C-alpha cells in the first residue's frame, strides 16, 4: 500500500468576493509550492473586468 499526504494551500474568498493576483481571477486558488498567499487578494465581483472569464 502506498500512502501519500498531499499538502495544497487553497485560497477561497469571502462571499461576494473574488481572488486575483492582478492578472488572473478565480473563485478558488490552489497555490503552487513557491507561491505565497500574499500574492493574492480579494476584490468584489463588480471590479472584475468584463472580458475576463472566471
Amino acid at each position: 500500500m502506498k500512502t501519500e499526504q498531499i499538502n495544497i494551500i487553497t485560497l477561497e474568498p469571502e462571499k461576494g468576493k473574488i481572488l486575483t493576483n492582478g492578472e488572473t481571477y478565480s473563485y478558488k486558488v490552489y497555490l503552487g509550492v513557491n507561491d505565497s498567499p500574499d500574492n493574492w487578494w480579494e476584490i468584489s465581483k463588480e471590479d472584475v473586468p468584463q472580458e475576463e472569464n472566471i
Partner: protein
Amino acid sequence: MSTYFIDGDTMTGIADAVRDMRHETDLMTPAQIEAKIRASSLGIPIKISNHMVNGQWVRPQEYPDLDSITIPSDFDGMYLTYDLRKTPGYGWIGLYMQIDSTTSGKNTYFVERGHLDDGEFVVELQYEVARNSYFRQPLDDTYGDVQLWRVWSKGRILRKGFCPSSATSSEALINQMQPCVECVGRLNYLNNLVGTNASTSSIAQCTLWMERERIACSGLRSVASMTRTWSGCYSLQSLEIEDWPVDKWAVTTFNSVWTNCISLEKLDLSSWDVSGWAITSLADIWNGCRSLKTLNISTWDTSNWAITSLYRTWTQCTCLQKLDISNWDTENWAVTTLNSCWHNCASLQSLDLSKWDTSNWAVTNMGYTWYRCYCLKTLDVSTWDTEDWNVTSLVSTWNSCYSLEELDMSNWDTSNWTVTEADYIWYCCYSLKSLDVSTWDTSGWNVTSLISTWNACFSLEELDISSWNTSSWTVTDADYTFYSCYSLKSLDISDWDLSNWTATTFTGFLGELYSLESLLLPKNKTFSSSYLVPNFSKLQNFDGVSININHSYNAAYSLTIQSLVKIMTALPTVTSQTLTLGNNKNKLTSAELAVATQKGWTVA
C-alpha cells in the same frame, strides 16, 4: 470618371486627378478624335498606344521598322493624339522621318498641331523639318490635355517613327519622346505584310497599334518565332487571326505572345493547327490579358510539344471564366516551372486537368500556381504523377482560392520533393471542405517557414497530416499556421518532430479554432508561447506540448478529465507560474491538482 491605365495599376487614377485639377470639363478624348477622323475623309484609323513598363516608356523598336514605305497617293498624313493626362506635367513630341528626296524632290516633312472642324484638320501651328532629322518639341498643355498633331510629307517616306531609329538614337532622347498615345492615319500598307518572322517582320509592330483591324498575313511563311508578337498591345481589343496559315509554320518560340494585351477580350484560335510546332515554353503567353473573356484553344494538338515552362502562362487573366485545356496532350512535356501558371485567374470557375500526363515532368517550383483563383470551384489534379518532381517551393500555391471546395492529392508522390517554403499554401481557401494530403511523404522536406499555411480555411472540417514526417524541418516561423480554421474538428500532429524547429512565438498558430474537439500536439518540446494553448469551448480531447509560462484553459470547459490530467502531467517544473483552469478545476481531485502545484504552478 474614366480610369486610365498607363503601366498597370500604379498610375491608375493619377491622370484623372490631374485632369480634375485642370480646367477642361468637356475634354475630347483620343477615342473621340479617332471617331471624328474615321467619320471624315482624313484617314482609316489605326490606333497606336504607347505605354510604360516599370515607369519607362517602351522603346521605339515597337514602331514599324519597315525599310521602305511608299506613301499612297491619297496619303493625308498620320494623326497623332497626345494625352498629357497620362504624362502629367511632362510631354514631348518626337519624330524622325527619313525622306527619299531623289524620288520626290522634297527635302522636308511637316509637323502640325491642330484641331478638327467639320471633318477637316485645321492647322494651328506648323513646323517644317528637314528630312532625315529629328523633330522634338515639348507639348504645351495650355493648348489642351489632349492634343492632335498631324505629320505629313509629299515625299516618299523610307522610314518613319515617333523616335529616332534605334541605330542612331540616344536612349535619353527616346525616353523623352513617348507621350504619344494614339496614331490615326491612312496606313493601308500594313495590311499587306510580307515576312518570315512574326516577331521581326513587323507583324507585331503593326498590330501593336491596332485596336480591331484585321491582319492579312498570307505573305508570312516559315515563321519560327512568335515571341512577344503582340506583347504590350494595350489597346488591342480583338484580333482576327483565325485563318493564319500556322500549320505551315515551324514555330519554336511562342512565349510572351499576348503579354499585357490588357484590352483583348476574345481570342479564338480553335482553327489553328499547331501540331507541327516544336515549342518548349508557354511562359507569359497570356500574362496580363486582363480583359480576356474567351480563349478558345481546346482543340490544340500539343502532343509534339516539349514544354518545360508554364511560368505565368495565364497570369492576370482576371476575366477568363472558362479555360478548356482538358484534352491537351502533355505526355511529352517536361515541365519544370509551374509557378504562377494560373496566378490571378480571378474569374476562372473550373479547371479540368485530370487527363494531363505529368509523368515526365520534373517540377521544381509550384509557388503561386493557382494564387488568387478566387472563383475556382473545381480543380481536378488528382491523377497527376508527381513522382519525379522535386518541388522546393509551395508558397501560396492555392492561396486565395476562395471557392475551391475539394482538393484531392492523395495520389501525389512527394517523396522526392525537397520543399523549403510552405507559407500560405492553402491560405484563404475559405470553401475548402476536403483536402486529402494525408499520404504525402514529407521526410525529404526541409521546411523553414509555415506561416499561414492553412490560415482561413474556414470550411475545412478534417485535416489528416498526422503522418507527415517533420524530422528534417527547421521551421523558424510558424505564425498563424492553422489560424481561423473555424470548422476544423480534429487535428493530430502528435508525431511531428519539432526538435529542430527554432520557431518560438507561434503567434496565432492555433488561433480561433472554435470547432476543435480533438487536438493532439507533439509532446517532445517545451514552449514559452501561450499561442499553443487551445483554449476553445468545444475542445474535449487534448494532449500536447508543455508550456512553461502563464496560460489558461478557462474557456475550454469541455475538456475531459483525462485531457486535464494529461495537461497536468505535461507541465514542466517552474518557479512560479499560473495555470488558469476556471471551472475545469472542479473536474479534478486534489491529488490531480497537486501534480501541478508540486511543480510550481498555482492553479486558478
